[in-house]
């Protein structure tokens, strides 16, 4: 009995398998399937889940690569001209003291909900973002109150002078949205169910949580910019964690553009018929924070010796085009960037002399330094091992410890200075197009360490940091001069080494025209600005 039943079951299984096999036969493979990149659909292949959160007030992760196509800010930063350009606001001006900012709004802007945007909506969305105080909402810290005296005018009153035109252009927390979109429902809950209420060129079509094709957007017919001329009218986000798979998808034309590949894979698309590649510096700078308060690196001579002991060029070439050396700490494309600053150079002899003065180096006292970096980051791992071998030549032993970021940070913030690392590798980037972020966070005196993980304290530098934002609000040229002075000071005192900035290596179908990298909006592709070829 049992055998017969079993036999029948196996027979059924065999039939099902047979059906599957037949079904497989003649199935089109990736090679022959219709190209999603052609025509009016732009398919952006990204490495990880897109929509982490849906609330435009608190969105602070990967979702901004989609939100920047569904929502808009008052202004946009143009990294090519290093200027702020109009978006939802057509013009703006600040009072001479930098405390009052008046924005004139574009007329005829519609939300995806159908309502027309007015100054009341601008006030309501920024007020709500400030009130929720999640994600990057702190960028609005200077704002005291917002007025909407007429439908096309918004006035910001600040507590202290700040460059509000830059803040308003931020990658996140600066979106203008319809706060009445949910009607009587709770707006935050409504967003989290997978809704949007922006003014951007694309509106939500479909969201498939956790699926490979995670998100589809479609052209918003009433977009203020209009749809004359060639535009992509559909925008698909496809999630492919494996770089090799992403490369295969691009090669077979199933995606239009790949967010990130390994340099080796990216090179296979260079000078290839049918593909375009770009490599532009990002604002993701890798820093080595040196412990200025405890251990051997508290001695400025030792820090300078370490700065001279590292083969920067060798490091860059080991990264195969994935990184670019920068002058100073502010990356290119961001105002405040200054070319030809006195960066440290590879000079082992100088390093040896400085170490000898401090009693270390070959023949002197041996030195051991702990270095922490973010586990799983292949670039940081490479940098750590190169630094280890460069310093080993100078009788310095580096104890390299990969840690998950929360653990690395916890160690760096230890209340006992002896528990902290000597060298910490991490990336820093600004939350809006302002170099202020590096200086206030990384180098301003902190009573308890938070992001100043070199534990550096310099009253002269503190004073410059405290005044530079108001200079940026009123006289940007003066602010640029201050940023130059601060960078020179930091390069000399060497509390941190500015190792390099990451390079965005993108590959796309050559039918995608008009792509310009804007590092102020990391990994965002503004599909409206592209032309399908």
């Amino acid at each position, binding site marked *: 009995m*049992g*055998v017969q039943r*079993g*036999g029948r079951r*196996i027979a059924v*299984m*065999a039939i*099902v*398998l047979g059906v*599957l*096999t037949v*079904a*497989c036969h*003649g*199935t*089109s*493979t*990736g*090679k022959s*399937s*219709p190209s*999603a990149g052609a025509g009016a659909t732009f398919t952006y292949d990204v490495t*990880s*889940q897109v929509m*982490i959160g849906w609330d435009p007030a608190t969105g*602070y*992760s990967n979702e901004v690569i989609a939100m920047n196509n569904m929502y808009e800010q008052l202004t946009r930063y143009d990294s090519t001209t290093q200027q702020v350009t109009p978006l939802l606001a057509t013009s703006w001006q600040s009072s001479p003291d930098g405390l009052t900012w008046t924005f004139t709004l574009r007329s005829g802007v519609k939300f995806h909900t159908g309502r027309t945007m007015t100054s009341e909506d601008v006030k309501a969305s920024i007020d709500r973002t400030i009130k929720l*105080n*999640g*994600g*990057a909402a*702190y960028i609005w810290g200077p704002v005291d109150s917002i007025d909407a005296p007429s439908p096309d005018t918004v006035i910001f009153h600040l507590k202290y002078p700040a460059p509000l035109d830059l803040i308003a252009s931020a990658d996140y927390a600066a979106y203008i949205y319809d706060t009445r979109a949910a009607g009587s429902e709770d707006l935050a809950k409504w967003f989290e169910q997978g809704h949007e209420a922006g003014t951007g060129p694309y509106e939500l079509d479909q969201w498939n*949580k*956790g*699926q*490979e*094709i995670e998100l589809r957007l479609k052209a918003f017919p009433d977009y203020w910019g209009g749809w004359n001329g060639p535009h992509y009218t559909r925008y*698909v986000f*496809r999630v*492919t*964690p*494996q770089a090799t*798979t992403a490369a*295969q998808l691009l090669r077979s034309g*199933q995606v239009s553009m790949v967010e990130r590949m390994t340099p080796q894979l990216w090179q296979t698309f260079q000078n290839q018929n049918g593909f375009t590649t770009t490599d532009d510096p990002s604002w993701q700078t890798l820093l080595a924070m040196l412990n200025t308060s405890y251990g051997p690196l508290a001695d400025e001579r030792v820090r300078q010796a370490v700065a001279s002991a590292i083969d920067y060029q060798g490091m860059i070439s080991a990264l195969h085009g994935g990184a670019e050396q920068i002058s100073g700490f502010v990356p290119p494309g961001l105002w405040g960037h200054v070319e030809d600053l006195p960066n440290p150079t590879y000079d082992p002899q100088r390093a040896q002399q400085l170490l000898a003065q401090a009693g270390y180096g070959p023949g002197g006292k041996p030195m051991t330094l702990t270095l922490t970096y973010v586990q*799983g980051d292949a670039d940081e791992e490479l940098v750590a091992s190169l630094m280890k071998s460069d310093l080993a030549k100078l009788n310095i032993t580096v104890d390299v410890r990969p*840690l*998950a*970021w*929360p*653990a*690395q*940070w*916890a*160690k760096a913030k230890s209340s006992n200075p002896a528990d902290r690392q000597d060298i910490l590798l991490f990336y820093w980037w600004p*939350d809006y197009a302002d170099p202020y*972020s590096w200086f206030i*966070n990384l180098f301003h005196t902190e009573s308890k360490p*938070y*992001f100043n993980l070199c534990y550096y304290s310099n009253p002269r530098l503190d004073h410059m940091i405290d005044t530079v934002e108001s200079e940026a609000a009123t006289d940007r040229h003066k602010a640029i001069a201050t940023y130059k002075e601060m960078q020179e000071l930091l390069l000399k005192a060497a509390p941190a080494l500015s190792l390099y900035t990451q390079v965005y290596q993108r590959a796309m179908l050559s039918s995608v025209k008009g792509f310009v990298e804007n590092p102020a909006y990391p990994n965002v592709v503004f599909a409206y600005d592209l032309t399908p070829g």
Partner: protein
Amino acid sequence: MIRYVVRRVALAILVVAGVVVLTFVIARVVPGDPAVSWAGPHASRAEIARVRHDLGLDRPLPVQIGRYFIGVLGGDWGTSIHTHRPVLSDIMDRAPASIELVLVALLFSLVVGIPLGLVSAKWPGKTADGVIRVGAVLGVSMPAFWLALILQLVFFQRLHLLPVAGQYDPNLDYTHPLTQYTRMVLVDALVTGNWSVLRSAAAHVVLPALVIASYPLGVITRMVRASVLDSVGEDHVRMVRSLGFPERSVFGRFALKLALNPVIAVVALVFAYSLANTFLVEAIFDWPGLGSYAADSISSLDTPAIVGVTLFVAIVYVLANLIVDLVQAWLDPRIALR
């Protein structure tokens, strides 16, 4: 029999609870604050403190575990740190894809493995037996990631026969949208008669399923061979043979019947094992299952998600064990008496 069932179920619950406590403690002992991952890279002190409080991370560990258990009983498995969504719904979204993959792999292993085992047992020591046994050992010991890459290289890169990754051609979502009932694409496509998606999904499942099948295929083949050889030597089979039944029936019916018991046991265990084994394979084939979810959870110190996935796999494991125990007890009443 009832006492036996109660004992097994109670033991199963205890095991699952133990696994949860262990995972929870290990995940929390690892240095680092999950709130940091939640709050985002440049979050302020106040923001992180608020998140810690919201997530209940500022409470003592036993309280956190206690609250977690109460939550689990009520269907609340916590909120994932990296997706910011309920863990249970994340798992329910992802698990069907993994289960579908494993089921296809097991089906293949059974359909191929049982005949191979029988052939092997029929002519022990002969060339066919040798080839099958070597193949079985290879299948069991082959590293999955290596096999996966080789198959991709051959069937996608060289032969252009099968797609390289994914669950089905995503362009079909435009032309032939799939209505989802079970979230298992093959099943949904079959039920709704969506032949385009079915064809595409079937082509996509072949390579990952083959990779996952390599282990169970080896195990099943060897198990069938060994137990058939065992039972062939037993009196009643010798008697059947002496009664003049054709050799085919002797093997295919009488010997196999006895041999099937241990095979059933092994299949259930291999199913649970394969569910965890898919993690690596899913990463390579971009399969939208539990594996990629688990990998993301680990890299962001996502305790609720890590514990959730572990709990899910533990439940499947324990359920598989339980079913084996009960089926065996039902087939062979002597077991329940032990």
